[in-house]
């Protein structure tokens, strides 16, 4: 069953002058429990596609259905609410909140959602323990390594039980060991808990672990390989 479905999707910049097709007529579906990489050279439209799917940007044309809802017609405030409830984000630069501890960062989205404190504590503590950070709950981001920070970011994205997780170059700033640890952790979450992951990446280590690889060239779908 598709959790994401785009139909005739375009994102065109400078439409009035010299049009640039950042996303060029992409119709694609992503199913639940997939571990998908979107790859392609720089400027191929990977990040733009993820931004459109994540409701961070609006398409020039076409439709986007996420978790059964058209997000391309939503207002900005509806999209913010939708992102909060349905999508988990992992960013290249971790983007943790420096003044919050690992636990507080990981619990942040659940608290924004207004989930009960007890439920939040159980879920977040359990996940942080699961990713090997049970003893770093009260550490601030500045006290964590890059790999640990990214694991906190994954837990933050996961904690609220989103329909899928969008990860934009999640291993770009990690050393090899930290990258492998993170990928193993995400793969395990995908296999054990059926979490759907959608990556944009250049990193071969991520591509090697993907169950599906979508390649974009010049904003258009070039290939779609299922493994």
């Amino acid at each position: 069953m598709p959790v994401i479905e785009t139909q005739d999707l375009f994102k065109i910049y400078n439409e009035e002058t010299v049009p640039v097709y950042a996303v060029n007529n992409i119709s694609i579906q992503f199913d639940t429990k997939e571990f998908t990489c979107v790859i392609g050279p720089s400027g191929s439209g990977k990040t733009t596609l993820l931004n459109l799917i994540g409701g961070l940007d609006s398409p020039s044309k076409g439709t986007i259905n996420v978790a059964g809802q058209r997000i391309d017609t939503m207002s900005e405030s509806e999209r913010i609410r939708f992102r909060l409830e349905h999508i988990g984000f992992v960013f290249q630069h971790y983007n943790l909140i420096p003044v919050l501890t690992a636990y507080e960062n990981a619990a942040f989205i659940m608290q924004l959602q207004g989930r009960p404190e007890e439920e939040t504590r159980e879920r977040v503590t359990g996940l942080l323990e699961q990713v090997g950070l049970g003893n770093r709950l009260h550490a601030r981001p500045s006290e964590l390594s890059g790999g640990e920070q990214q694991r906190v970011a994954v837990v933050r994205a996961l904690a609220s039980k989103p329909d899928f997780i969008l990860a934009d170059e999640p291993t770009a700033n990690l050393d090899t060991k930290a990258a492998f640890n993170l990928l193993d952790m995400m793969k395990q979450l995908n296999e054990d808990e059926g979490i759907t992951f959608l990556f944009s990446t250049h990193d071969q280590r991520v591509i090697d672990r993907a169950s599906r690889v979508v390649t974009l060239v010049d904003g258009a779908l070039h290939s779609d390989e299922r493994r």
Partner: protein
Amino acid sequence: MQLIKMAWRNIWRNKVRSLAVMTAVLLGLVAGMYAGALVEGIMQSRFENFIDNQVSHIQVHHPDFIRENEVFQTVGSDLRTLEEVRAISGVTSATVRTRVQSMIASASYTGGVELYGIRPKSENQTTNFSRNLVEGDYLEGESTNGILIGGALAEKLKVGVGSRIVLSYQDKDNNLVSGAFIVRGIFKSGFTRYDEMTAFVFQEYLNEYLGIGQDFHELAVLAEDIENLDEIYSELQKVFPNSSVRKWNEIEPALEIMITSSGLFSYIFIILIMIGLAFGLLNTMLMAVFERTREIGMLMAIGMNRRKVFLLIALETIFLSLSGAIVGLLVGYIIVAWFAKHGLDLSAFSDVMYELGVDTVVYPALNPSFPFVLALIVFGTALLSAIYPAIKALSLSPIEAIRK
């Protein structure tokens, strides 16, 4: 709760910058509080001097006397009414006076004065006037031709204690009468103009010249508490149904305006300080927003709505200013309290203070509501200062912000 925690911790991300802003708020408030308390103290001193030395709290006159000033326009002569007034609950003391426009002359100068015929004992109980004497003695003993004149008038007349001066005035039949008086004492009331234009003699002695027996033109009442004036005023209207009964602010409306506007001046002063601080706050918060562009973009990307982003920036601004404000109010309160107890000696400006009718040692007084109003002004300033940085934060595009 989550936002409060974040906002509080965020203000400590750049300690030096935040402490600089807090210190500015603190100093601004201390200066504002002290200036406000000083103005209040000056006004209280002026008010007390005015009430004590001149008008008391309430006066009673013949309905036409204030406008026409005729000798025959008296309140009456029945001193039993004076006892009745003294018996009114809340009245500390009361006295009666004769008032007449007069010419005063010495060998060097001739001018007009308001001549008061007083009953020295009750006058002193009501206005404590004897404390203003800087030379000579108060009017005591048997009714004689002794006179008290102001220091400024003595200078004009070039007379001193023991000097002889002549007073001329009309009696009740409009005959011009003159009398020689001996300067018994020289007073300084704190109001130069008053000291130039006023003289005091025994009422009994003056009334004899005026031919009005025991009549009096003015009855002055001093109340225990200014809060009870309305009740005393009502009672006096019952005792003197055909006379004009006026409270101090009707007798001297300019003083009331001055007191009211002095409070306003304090608030204007504080608001001016706060406008300066608002720009400091705005600048600090703008820097904080620009430094955290990616973080704010991330917050919006993961689902923090605009209302919460606005609230976060507003809370940070409020915490930043209120932290300085709380310490500022405390320090300001301690400083004002110290000076309220020990007084601020402004004798270096004694001439100016005397012209203003204010004692040379001023005791700053803090209006109890002043700190709360200040806290509200700081809160309002913080909210206003937060608007522009918050709008800047809200205008960030999550995609652009995260890329930075």
